[in-house]
């Protein structure tokens, strides 16, 4: 009975949090038209979330692609079809690794930055000061950061996949001796626009989820050093778990 009661309490807590997150999203969406009137704030946040994450995204994309090239070559060689390496790398990156790894890296770099920045603003009374100046902090602080993340994520995922394909080509063609013409022509022949769109849809959904989690955790953090630290940790952990769950659900729907 005690176990059941604990489970029920945990489930109820999760549902309450989910409800609060949805309400927060609705509040942000209601404030979005007003926030879009000041597009400069959104552009600034696209720069913060996107441009400042470029180095880590490109570096990781390159090495993920290179590993994919090595592993793919090893696997395909066993079936005598190493010329399909381009197709395998492209599909793997565009449909799966690009959006997912980008989301994980995004939550680790930009998500934590968002959560800690907003959390610190709460801890130092900056959000209260805005409210006292009759400025809605959700509209002024949260919405531009949320939109910045939502816009930046698909762009980062596209860059990740592009660099990753380049990395796979680098290893497969330059190192392992796969024919360059076969590598690119098979990729062009096999990769459909639907495959690309699957990656775009996934990265958009992950962008909404990861940005929402980061902004929500920061905005609702306890106004203490410990509270900000906890919000930052929760952002990474929850974003990673939600990304992987959503990935499975989206893959199941779009396959």
């Amino acid at each position, binding site marked *: 009975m005690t176990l059941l009661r604990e489970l029920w309490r945990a489930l109820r807590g999760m549902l309450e949090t989910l409800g609060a997150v949805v309400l927060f999203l609705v509040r942000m969406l209601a404030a979005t038209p007003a926030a879009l009137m000041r597009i400069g704030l959104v552009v600034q946040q696209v720069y913060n979330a996107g441009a400042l994450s470029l180095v880590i995204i490109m570096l990781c994309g390159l090495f993920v692609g290179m590993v994919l090239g090595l592993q793919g070559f090893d696997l395909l060689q066993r079936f005598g079809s190493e010329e399909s390496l381009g197709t395998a790398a492209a599909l793997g990156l565009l449909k799966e690794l690009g959006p997912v790894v980008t989301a994980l890296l995004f939550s680790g770099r930009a998500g934590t930055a968002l959560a800690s920045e907003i959390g610190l603003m709460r801890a130092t009374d900056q959000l209260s000061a805005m409210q*006292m*100046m*009759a400025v809605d902090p959700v509209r002024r602080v949260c919405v531009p950061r949320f939109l910045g993340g939502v816009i930046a994520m698909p762009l980062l995922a596209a860059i990740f996949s592009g660099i990753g394909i380049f990395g796979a080509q680098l290893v497969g063609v330059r190192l392992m001796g796969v024919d360059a013409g076969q590598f690119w022509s098979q990729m062009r022949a096999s990769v459909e626009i639907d495959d690309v769109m699957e990656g775009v849809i996934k990265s958009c959904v992950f962008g909404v989820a990861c940005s929402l989690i980061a902004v929500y955790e920061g905005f609702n953090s306890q106004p203490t050093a410990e509270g900000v630290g906890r919000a930052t940790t929760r952002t990474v952990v929850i974003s990673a778990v939600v990304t992987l769950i959503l990935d499975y659900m989206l893959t199941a729907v779009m396959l």
Partner: protein
Amino acid sequence: MAPNAHAAPEANGVAGSDDIVAVRDLHYATSGREIFKGLDIRIRRGLVTAIMGPSGTGKTTLLKLITRQVEPDRGSIIVDGRDLGRLNRTQLYALRQRMGMLFQNGALLTDFDVFENVAFPLREHTDLPESLIRHIVLTKLHAVGLRGAATLMPAELSGGMARRVALARAIVMDPKILIYDEPFAGLDPISMGVIVRLVRQMNDALGITSIVVSHDVHEISILADQTYLLSEGTVVAAGSPQELRTSPAEVVRQFMDGLADGPVPFHYPAPDYQAQLLAREGS
């Protein structure tokens, strides 16, 4: 003056036309602790009113209630003729545009320099041309003596300077009410003197009403026209600083003279000392 003796006519729950803030029968509890038990306060237009009391009596909470950053459990708060409990978000924000608040730590926006911090409310609420914004901001910064610090970032300011910038920001929209939360806390004597002078100057020159939360007896006796002393969730004394200084009431004497023990006990409520020492560990 007996506790509440002076407070009685002030706190009879009937707000006069001279009152810009009227708090009636306010009840508020948080974390299972009752902070206010039927608080009545009236703040008169155009005066500097000090809210004093020992630490933990809820002075800052009272400011949060007056600005509706938190909601009371019971009672009403009338600010400039508007019942706070009946206002929707738009009406509340419209009212807040007529109020300025100085937070204990300044609460400056750390991404912006001093100029942009002061310009922030103007940029958010008006469509004034840049030249006019510059003119207004420099005027306000000049009033607090920090025109030369316009390009500094908040991290480069001392505590006193940060509060002066926050004061310039609080008056940039020409508010009717200025609220100060512990404006003297942690300041050196010179900065404290500057803030005292500025609060008085702003109040008189701009014709606004000032509400100052503080426990600095000396500064408040120089500055305030009207003082409320809070303890145990209610007003225990009210009047001019001079009246409070001559009050025979024990709780007032303890606070004004800085006595360690008295009606406000030195010890936080605890079980019997001897029994606790002799008790087995964990019991």
